[in-house]
């Protein structure tokens, strides 16, 4: 009966829950002859997300979709997380993916997420003939990401402000539901769906191991995207100063150390074992180094538009990025990845595509020209077998 007891992380609070034992709210449509329920503040919502809005009461006992509200006899509403009481998308199941996006301050996490949010729902959805929605996209992080992109697209577009440190408070992640027809081995299509969410943390949260340990949600993630600022590599520090870009206080290796410690701790990985969660290591702001990268370099190849993940091309890019990282003085970073992670992949991406004015934090006047932004998430999805891959 283990299959019925399998758990998956809630895409909102990252708590492991049993998808078959979800919570339901009273729908508010009371039964005849019964007094209607009243909306009240939900202590779980307050605890997790500082949400003090009034909600219909939660039907107890938790876990029965057929139960009616014991108070007013109303039908139950849509399913929700029994822990944080967030409404769960219909696509939510045991195979849902929680993805942590981590990186030091100013490594471009929010910018990358903002652009990724747009690409997922346009080019990626087109490429895989999928519907990728952000349920509740008008609120929370998903809404913030869209606002960020609109601001960046203006003629004098500005980069998003630094993300505040989460501290003890919670922020609702950006949750996406992906549904598409996947062809089986003998050509039979079936609908595949999943839910994945991104949690955008502040760079400061990974400045030290102590602070990184507070990001307990990472333990529940099924994959991590580690964003590294290329200006943080020793060989690029002078270049950063020349361009007016900030040199990260925390080097790439320190970030990796912090996150490795968190993941090892959260998953209880033994010293002689490697972390099994796949980690996509993305060298962001790659546009700042296009002058060093020939136009026919694999890193400058546009993303494929074919409806599968090209593992060979990804591996080629991985090798070339590794070569670049070594060239920039980051060989030890690669070694640490090899020694601590079962699966890791190097990526080069640029959410802006053209260098911004680092000092004024304004987007390049030519606009947003993103480059290979979706590759890491596609790799993670391919790793989970959700999208087809080839050439491996």
């Amino acid at each position: 009966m283990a299959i019925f007891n399998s758990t998956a992380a809630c895409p909102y609070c990252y708590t492991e829950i049993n998808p078959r034992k979800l919570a339901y709210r009273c729908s508010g449509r009371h039964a005849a002859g019964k007094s209607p329920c009243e909306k009240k503040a939900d202590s779980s919502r307050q605890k997790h997300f500082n949400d003090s809005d009034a909600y219909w009461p939660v039907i107890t006992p938790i876990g029965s979709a057929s139960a009616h509200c014991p108070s007013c006899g109303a039908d139950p509403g849509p399913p929700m997380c029994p822990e944080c009481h967030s409404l769960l998308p219909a696509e939510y199941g045991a195979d849902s993916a929680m993805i942590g996006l981590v990186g030091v301050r100013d490594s471009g996490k929010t910018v990358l997420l903002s652009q990724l949010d747009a690409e997922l729902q346009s080019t990626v959805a087109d490429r895989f003939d999928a519907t990728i929605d952000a349920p509740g996209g008008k609120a929370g992080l998903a809404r913030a990401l869209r606002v960020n992109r609109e601001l960046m697209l203006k003629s004098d577009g500005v980069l998003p402000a630094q993300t505040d440190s989460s501290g003890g408070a919670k922020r609702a992640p950006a949750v996406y539901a992906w549904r598409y027809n996947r062809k089986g081995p003998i050509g039979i299509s079936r609908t595949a769906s999943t839910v994945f969410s991104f949690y955008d943390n502040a760079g400061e949260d990974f400045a030290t191991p102590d602070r990184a340990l507070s990001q307990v949600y990472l333990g529940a993630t099924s994959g991590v995207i580690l964003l590294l600022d290329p200006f943080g590599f020793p060989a690029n520090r002078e270049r950063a100063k020349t361009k007016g870009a900030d040199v990260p206080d925390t080097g790439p290796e320190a970030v990796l150390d912090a996150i490795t410690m968190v993941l090892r701790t959260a998953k209880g990985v033994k010293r002689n074992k490697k972390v099994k969660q796949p980690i996509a290591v993305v060298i962001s702001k790659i546009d700042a180094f296009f002058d060093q990268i020939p136009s026919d370099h694999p890193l400058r190849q546009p993303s494929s538009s074919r409806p599968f993940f090209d593992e060979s091309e990804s591996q080629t890019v991985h090798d070339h990025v590794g070569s670049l990282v070594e060239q920039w003085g980051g060989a030890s970073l690669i070694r640490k990845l090899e020694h601590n992670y079962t699966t890791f992949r190097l990526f080069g991406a640029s959410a802006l595509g053209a260098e911004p004015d680092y000092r004024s934090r304004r987007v390049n006047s030519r606009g947003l020209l993103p480059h290979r932004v979706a590759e890491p998430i596609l790799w993670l999805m391919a790793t989970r077998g959700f999208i087809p891959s080839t050439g491996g």
Partner: protein
Amino acid sequence: MTFDAAKYKNSVLVPLARDKARLDVLQQVIRDVQGTVGVGAAARLNASELFAVEPGMGVAELAAHLKGLEMTYNKQKNLPSAGLLKKLLDLFGKDKVGDPGFWAGLASSRGQALKGQLAEFAHAVAEEHPLDVVTPEQLSEIAAGMGLGDLPEADLAEALAEQGVEVRPDFEIPKVALPPAIRKVTEFPEFRTIVDVVLRPEQPTDMSVIEELAFGSPARRLEPADVVAAKQRLQQQEAQVEERARQAAQNALGALTELKSASELHALTLAALAGATDDLLRRGLPRVAVRTELVKRGVRSIDASRLVARLSASTQVLGLSDVADRLTEGALGEARRLLDALPPLDGEHADERARVTASVETAEKKKRQFFAQYEASLKSRDYVAAATALRDALSVDSQDDDLRGKLARLPPLPPASLSLRVEGRSLEITWSADGDDAIRYSVVRTTSEMPVNHKDGDVVAAGIQATKFRDDMAPIGTLVRYSVFATRDGSSYSDPATAMSVVLPTPYDFAASPGTTDVSLSWAAPPEAAGVVVTETAPDGTRKEYRPATPGQLAVGGLRTGTKYRFSVKAVYLLAGGERRESAAVELDTTPRGSIRPVDDLLVEAAPAGHTARWSSVVGFTIELWALPITADVTPATRMTSAELTTLSGRRLTLRPGIGGIGETKREFDALPDVSLLVPITLDGDGGLVGTPQVAGSAPSVQKPTAERFGDELRLSWEWPKGDYIVEVGWRVGSARSTKRVSRTSYNDEGGVRLPASEVSGEVTLATVVRAGFQEWVSAPISIPVSVVAPAVKYALSVKRSKFGGKATVAVSLESHQFRGSVELLTVLKEAKFMPNASSDGTVVDRRMVDLSSGRSSFSLDLGKVVAPFWVRVFPSSSGVRVEDPPTSQMRGQ
């Protein structure tokens, strides 16, 4: 009935005690009763009332009543009436008063006694009031004084009537300012009152003047209409009235004309009669004589009596000082009349009368002197001096209406500022007025001498009040003199103001019909004209005169096409004596040119300094270019004015000349700040014919255009101009040109514009597209240089390493679709985790020239013993070709 002491006290004793006259009567009766008359004297009293004895009282009742009276009289000793009545009662004797018959006898004898009293009263009043009229107030006062205050007024009036005395209410003299003319007119014997002036020659008698102004039988009221009739009658019967009287009557009637109602006429007449009465009384005439005088003047006797009675109460007798006062006030005539009327007064000093008389005579002398000056000036026609003399005389005797009339009858000054202005076939005469509204003008036209009076010549206007006159019948081509006379009364006229002119009408219906190099002129000349002169004026000022032989038309040739010429035509007149005169000129401008047509082939091109416009020339016409908003709606071949174009937010472009081909016009103009609809206008007057418009102008170009290769793609990006634009991307695929239009939204969605790099040869262009409705305009494109990419050489590796011994080999297969020839390639080996970045990042294990003339080549290398992992990578030795790496899985050796 019980005697009520309190009531008796309040109703009889107290009122009687307060009425002195009745108390006196009571005392007199007491005296009479005590005297020879006896008890019968009591008949004068109303004894029943005084003693409250009522008819029908019995003896006993009367006794009780008398007892009560006695007690009351004793009790009210402080009231004189109580004492007197008690005394009288005692005088009657107790025997008599206790008999009811005594009281009845007293009552019957009282009626007889009363008649005697009234007769006595009426006689006294008649003697005291010889005017035979008293007011009700006077009547009451006198009756009260005579102890008859308790009698009804009607009884008193009846008694007075028997004596010829009437009781009439008092009245007010209307407070109306009497015009001097009204006072003056009654000085003439013809007019006793102003009623005589109105009704002349009738002289009514027995006029009612106080309550109303009425006369005749049946009574008729005087109405304003009578005044109008009187004026007409006076004019018709001038000869029947002495001149001065007539003049005075005219003036008086003039003053009366201003009265708009019968009541106003009544008030004025009554005031005038009151004034006359007052004058008579002031002269010291007896009141009865004054009344008689008023009756003679037609006033009803009773009204005359009332007037005299009313005014005699307040009239003071005038003295010599009043004469001096009038002299000081400039009322010489009145001063003289008063002086003559004043009889020697009591206490009057003879010297004073002499002095006053001398003053009056001095003033009269002065007046005579001024009048003499007036007459002398009049003779010499020096009207200004005459007027001055009259005004001086009036300052001495301001109430002399005769002087005033003479002053009014003096001829006015001649009109000033006379001017003549010819308007076509008419002539307008204008002059200025001297501010006197009474002045009228006569205009006399003569063709020879100056007119001697206002009827000497053609009187074209008479008695007009306006200060201008238009003579539509002025003689044409003749010297004509216009004289304007001024008059106040229509009888004496000023000297004339004169001016001369000649009416020379211009030709009319002047028109021009231009040809390409000629103009046909036509006109109509006045029939009086002897001919015309046509003048041609070129733009440089040169003139030519033509004397056309054919009446009414002239063809002028040899003109320059497109040049504006001015033509004028003047009529020629021959005046009397053979003098030749020309009329004013009639002018027109005309431009010889071909037929008008709209520009339908406008071509606008970008030029270094802006734009160049070309079109097929329209001979003889100027073409303007107007820039309108791109959305403006204009219809070619229709006519539009400059105002209409401006209303459409259009603006006229400043065109610079350019060198065009034959039959072509070329103009240049500054760069337009935006995209506009350029509309050619073939000018014809204000506005012209609309040609076929073209969209032209400039839209902001994209900035920072960038073309970057990303593998097989060429990524284009740029800075968008502010505004709603589309960018057209253009590139060449071989010899064909391809374009792609990109909106801002698609640019953002796609992250720039991506073209297949293999398709693009040469440059890429970017042009800004402006769309407005169905209109579209594409700006001049800007070029983005696309760097030439070295031909690519692809290679594939097959790396093998012996697991035993570690020796490795690599087979290299080369292929190129773009490069033909030989290229030097370096094969680099790197024994490390990371592949070599450059040929220097490893060991060059092979350097060779590879012949790719066939597009393919291959070679193998023995790498010797190597440590895994290791990498093999091929690099070109120069930049002549690009070497594209295979997947890294081929490059890595395990």
